[in-house]
């Protein structure tokens, strides 16, 4: 067990690699109750999020649709990354990280009053992520008959209430699956029932190797308040399209773009033997100007992979200082693995 944002969480239940493979090949379950669920209510809630986050909630036109985004400070630094669900014009739900809960809530509460938005932390809800090619079918087996079809009909990146549960077709593994918010008192029973349906318990360790293979960022490793989303591989989550939308951090990002970005965020595949880890230096043109933000051994590829922030001019070949040895790595197109398939050769 490790401390994770004040929560005692298991790194692994048994073999971390077996937990990883279970998610890629069948189904695994993660307890992600540490994630902080906040309901935002009020007639101007859409306006609130339009100001608060870098992605544009105008993209959310259908009830239940989710959007991934960063919440930025005025300097364009990333306060947190989050998922926001549009439920009604007066009710959005947002899920933020555990380690950033206090500062996120304080930041959001500083802005909400301008829009008459009321924020309620849903500490009454647990969250289970059931992920893998067979995950949705196995969850459906546990649902009451009247909710089964509705759950299976959910499109990718949509969520909806089904009785006391909120079921969303989202995740952090690069596999299909559900994230389920449910009353805390039900979580242990549902966990055991899923185990009995062949869904393997998986810990934080497998969650990290799965998300890295899927090239999904981890807050605190890959970006933080000292980094902007444009140099963190998150440009796709920033919407400049509507010139009238004055989201927090916009001016700073536009100045950075006008001045010319210095860094870029890349995926690396280690060609030599070894394991890339966070904070190792990436050597580009003889200079240690890049840094690995997350690195691991990919159980699916049986090679080491990483995400790194490197100079804009970086080409296809780099070296990484791994415990004093210079190892060869290659810049590749992310993600490494998706839906059980290796995408990098």
């Amino acid at each position, binding site marked *: 067990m490790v401390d994770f944002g004040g929560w005692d969480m298991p*790194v692994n239940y048994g073999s*971390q*690699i077996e937990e990883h493979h279970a998610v890629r090949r069948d189904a695994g379950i993660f307890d992600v109750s540490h994630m902080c669920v906040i309901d935002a209510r009020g007639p101007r809630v859409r306006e609130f999020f339009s100001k608060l986050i870098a992605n544009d909630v105008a993209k959310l036109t259908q009830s239940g649709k989710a959007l991934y985004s960063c919440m930025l400070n005025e300097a364009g630094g990333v306060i947190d990354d989050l998922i926001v669900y549009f439920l009604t014009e007066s009710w959005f739900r947002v899920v933020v990280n555990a380690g950033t809960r206090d500062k996120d809530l304080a930041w959001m509460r500083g802005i909400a009053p301008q829009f008459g938005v009321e924020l309620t932390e849903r500490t009454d809800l647990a969250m289970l992520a059931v992920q893998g090619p067979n995950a949705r079918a196995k969850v459906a087996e546990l649902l009451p008959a009247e909710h089964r079809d509705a759950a299976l009909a959910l499109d990718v990146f949509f969520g909806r209430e089904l009785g006391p549960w909120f079921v969303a077709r989202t995740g952090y593994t690069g596999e299909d699956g559900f994230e389920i918010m449910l009353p805390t008192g039900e979580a242990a029973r549902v966990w055991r029932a899923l185990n009995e349906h062949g869904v393997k318990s998986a810990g934080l360790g497998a969650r990290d190797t799965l998300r890295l293979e899927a090239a999904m960022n981890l807050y605190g490793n890959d970006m933080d308040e000292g980094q902007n989303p444009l140099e963190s591989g998150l440009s796709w989550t920033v919407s400049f399209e509507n010139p009238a939308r004055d989201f927090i951090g916009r001016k700073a990002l536009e100045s950075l773009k006008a001045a010319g970005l210095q860094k870029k965020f890349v995926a690396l595949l280690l060609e030599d*033997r*070894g*394991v890339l*880890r966070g904070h190792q230096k990436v050597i580009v043109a003889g200079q240690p100007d890049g840094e690995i933000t997350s690195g*691991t051994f990919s*159980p699916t590829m049986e090679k080491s992979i990483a995400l790194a922030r490197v100079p804009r001019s970086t080409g296809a070949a780099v070296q990484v200082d791994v*415990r004093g040895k210079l190892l060869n790595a290659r810049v590749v197109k992310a993600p490494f693995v998706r839906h059980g398939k290796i995408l990098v050769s």
Partner: protein
Amino acid sequence: MSNIPADLKYTKSHEWVRTLANGNVEVGITDHAQAALGDLVFVDVPEAGKSLGAGDSFAVVESVKAASDVYAPIAGTVVEGNSGLGSQPELINSEPYGAGWIMRLKPGGAPSGLLSAAEYQALLDAEG
């Protein structure tokens, strides 16, 4: 419970030492150490001929979670690194005291400060 064979010697840094018939010693990491590291994915073994002082780092074992140094229990000269670990680092998980050995060493002097199985067990008990 960790497996701690009675016929081996141990270090406080969780290596084991087996004296071979020809006087050389075989070194690996303990069952406790492999369990704490988790699934091993990479081992950097030493090359034959390398000279080591007692307490020198002679290998790196990496699990999915972390990298750890392995330290020489005794001074000496490396006779052989276990090349089998290159393709099968998981042998350290499955057979820490057997096929998962890491190096064989020609001792440069008499070993000192090694722990018996009972002393190593007491160390693990104290670490909780």
